[in-house]
């Protein structure tokens, strides 16, 4: 394209119009005058950037860059570990692409944001119904940061200064906990099934199903928390709640989780939406944006952002968190997903994940050289022991257009964490089994 006389297509005023406008600005006779407060020896630096591209050139270039990736869909994929490839009904993308939702601002002005606000109230309602908790906020950045905020909240509530995290919680979530808890000097104890709690423990954090896919013995930890006056924080996979007992049923105090699997594409890790729900009595300590129902001057029902006195823009250094966004558009996508799937749909999706995972587990157990690591019951993910390092297995699988599971050999020798969703057909699973057999044979 002609880069010599480049004019941005996103700036509508012509140079003629701009000259007219400059004439109206007192004390300014040229464009350079507008920037005269900037140090003159540093102004207008050279920019070492590529040339501007037309839309056609840009599209071609990025499309070919995107083809350097192996894309699930073209490849069958058995990766999960906190990000899940699920089917997304068309209406989710259609509704979240509406510019009224996509290009609107945070709903600080409720009279012109009722669309966003009512949708977020629906999100909060459905998260409560899914988790069987009393209240929920309108979303956090992602599941991991949501867990870190839950730990900080538990410390605020209990005024105790350490937390216990089950070692079966996702390692990357534990790393995020470390980032957030180091500065306020909150100690993190990594515990297992047999550890007792140290005094001054604000909460126990566990993941259900855990990172390796297995179901934890919740009752044990629920009791342990009660005995120690600690809170129980549970991280959930929301799809599993189509089948598994919700945390509200076993007395969880705070529930967090990654909401991505509710209709959000895996998108190389984000943007996602963090789930955050808790007991009503903790409402004033909950971080994040909260939408509440109220009435207007005419008595009509409407919605507003509420309890903003907890938030950074009002309370400044005394806020419950510095969080500013609720990942509104992603929360909207999850809301539409849950509305579309509804009662019977979510049950069926959970069931498909469960059935396919168990079908595959039985077959893998029968391949010589492989076995499913027996850590108890599981939902849709489990660890298999491979005859050779998982990294090597994955290299061979990709030649058969299969993206294998996650290498967890640092925790379990030759361990691979594999995941199944409704997207994995029987044919794909049978292919995976055949490929694993062949890898064994060529060892």
């Amino acid at each position, binding site marked *: 394209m002609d880069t010599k006389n480049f004019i941005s297509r996103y700036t509508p005023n012509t140079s003629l119009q701009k000259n007219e406008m400059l004439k109206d600005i007192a004390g300014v006779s040229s464009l350079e005058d507008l920037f005269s407060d900037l140090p003159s020896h540093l102004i207008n630096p050279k920019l070492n950037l590529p040339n501007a591209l037309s839309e056609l050139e840009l599209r071609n270039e990025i499309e070919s*860059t995107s083809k350097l990736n192996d894309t699930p869909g073209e490849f069958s994929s058995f990766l999960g570990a906190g990000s899940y490839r699920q089917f997304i009904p068309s209406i989710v993308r259609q509704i979240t692409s509406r510019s009224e939702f996509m290009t609107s601002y945070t709903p600080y002005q409720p009279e012109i944001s009722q669309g966003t606000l009512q949708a977020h109230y629906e999100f909060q309602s459905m998260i409560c119904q899914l988790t069987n908790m009393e209240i929920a906020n309108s979303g956090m950045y992602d599941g991991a940061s949501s867990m870190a905020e839950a730990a900080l909240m538990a410390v605020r509530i209990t005024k105790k200064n350490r937390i216990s995290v089950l070692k079966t919680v996702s390692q990357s979530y534990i790393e995020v906990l470390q980032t957030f808890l180091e500065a306020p000097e909150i100690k993190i104890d990594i515990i297992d099934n047999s550890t007792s709690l140290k005094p001054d423990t604000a909460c126990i954090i566990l993941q259900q199903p855990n990172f390796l896919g297995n179901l934890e013995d919740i009752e044990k930890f629920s009791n342990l928390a009660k005995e120690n006056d600690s809170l129980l924080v549970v991280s959930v996979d929301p799809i599993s709640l189509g089948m598994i007992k919700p945390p509200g049923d076993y007395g969880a105090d705070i529930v967090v989780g990654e909401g991505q699997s509710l209709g959000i594409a895996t998108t190389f890790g984000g943007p996602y939406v963090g789930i955050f729900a808790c007991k009503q009595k903790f409402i004033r300590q909950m971080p994040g944006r909260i939408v509440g129902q109220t009435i207007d001057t005419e008595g009509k029902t409407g919605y507003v952002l509420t309890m903003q006195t907890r938030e950074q823009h009002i309370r400044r250094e005394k806020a419950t968190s510095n969080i500013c966004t609720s990942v509104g558009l992603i929360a909207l996508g999850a809301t539409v997903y849950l509305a579309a799937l509804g009662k019977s749909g979510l049950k069926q999706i959970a069931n498909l994940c469960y059935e396919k995972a168990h079908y595959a587990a039985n077959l893998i157990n029968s391949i010589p050289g492989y076995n499913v690591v027996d850590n108890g019951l599981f939902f849709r993910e489990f660890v298999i022991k491979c005859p050779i390092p998982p990294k090597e297995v994955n290299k061979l699988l990709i030649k058969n257009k299969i993206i294998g599971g996650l290498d967890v050999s640092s925790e379990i020798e030759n361990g691979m964490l594999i995941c199944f969703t409704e997207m994995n057909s029987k044919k794909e699973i049978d292919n995976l089994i055949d490929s694993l057999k062949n890898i064994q044979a060529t060892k």
Partner: protein
Amino acid sequence: MNSNQITNEHHIKKQNLIRKLLMDRSQPGKVGAHTPESDVPKQQTLPNKYLREELPLPEVSENEIVRYFSQLSQFNFSIDHNFYPLGSCTMKYNPKINDEIASLPGLSEIHPLQPEESIQGALKIIFELQGFLAEITGFHSTSLAPMAGAEAELAGMLITRSFHKNNGNDHKTKILITDSAHGTNPASAVMAGFDVISIPSDQNGNTDLEALKAAINDDLAGLMITQPSTLGLFDTNIIEICKMVKDAGGVLYGDGANLNALLGRIKPGDLGFDILHSNLHKTFTQPHGGGGPGAGAIMVSEKLSQYLPSPIVKYEKNNSQNDYSLISPEHSIGKMGGFHGNFGALVRAYSYIKTLGKQGINQISQDAVINANYIKSHLEEYYDLPIKRKCMHEVVFSASNFKKLNGIRALDIAKRLIDYGIHPPTMYFPLIIDEALMIEPTETESKETLDYFISSMIKISEEAKNDPEILRNAPHNTPNSRLDEALAARKPNLRWEKESN
């Protein structure tokens, strides 16, 4: 009543129909999505004690869901439909090509934990964007891991903390924040374990150098400052400020909320900043989405590069399939989120920068600053301008003259603007200006739109004097009139419940 209007009774019926919540629309047996039958043999189920009994989700048909959300969407203002002169929020046009690029299957369908050789395209985009942002802002290196501006601020403060600790300066526990800085700063500094001290502005809107000098001592960890400030002004003493803070061993943190004003004009790194964050949803056009998702980029000078949050992408030509890889810097403050940051937003910023290239980046700041000064010049005689200087990308007026006259407040003016089809400006911020109205037009608004805004503001200033009730009752034609926020906070109703609705 005009005979071509529907009756009030029917108007209420129509409103109630739109506002009905999903659970109240639910009827047993309705289906919103069909799921496939299982194609594998039936498996043994989990023991009962693990299974849930009830799943109280709505049962609504697909077309009803579409109608419901489409109707709700029309209750929103949005940048595609309305002008948003919302100070320090940089509500500019969100290019459509960016959304289409971000939805390419090769970018939207990839999994964050795929082996590196299978995601070289994604890593290439992140690597190049790291470089573009470092070049535009004048820094050594970039991390795109933070998922929002506030997370990037926190990352910047954690970097400051780790840097001082590693250099044996545990006693550096104090962060100074100018009173014209971005509002999130104090909460971010406190989350990183610092004590916060506010530094006032002088009468010209610059940082008060005497106050700054008095606050600097050995426990100084750093200064957080926003340039241009939230007054829309560039601090003419900035180089001296940088020097004072650095001479005392402090880290200079720049909040990039207002970076739009400086693009291609000056590189904050050249001014002496050690850290700068950028809100990609402001300056680099990620749509705001009704409150997110955003993305935060954090740029640092060379001495801090090993502290950046992880991961960052490294490039090394090694003739294998793995030229690009994810790494964690040596003294990294750690991970900010579960994966690698908000990739979908990064792709949009990348597409935007590539569209404008080296030729177009400074047109952003140029037009943003012209637009703001044009508004300032035309409204000065109608609204109180507390600091009389030429502004950068935004201008802060005060409604205090109306408050004195007849109790009309910034809020009333803002709400009346809604009747004119314009989103209210940022109000009551910065806190140092009484009844502040902070106006940022951005570069993507035409002269015609600005002229309409100016004439609306002039009209409202007349109404404020002659017909103040019309302002106090505004807005008039929205789905709801002003809402009772006190009631919402006093009696929280945060979810659907069977009886109460």
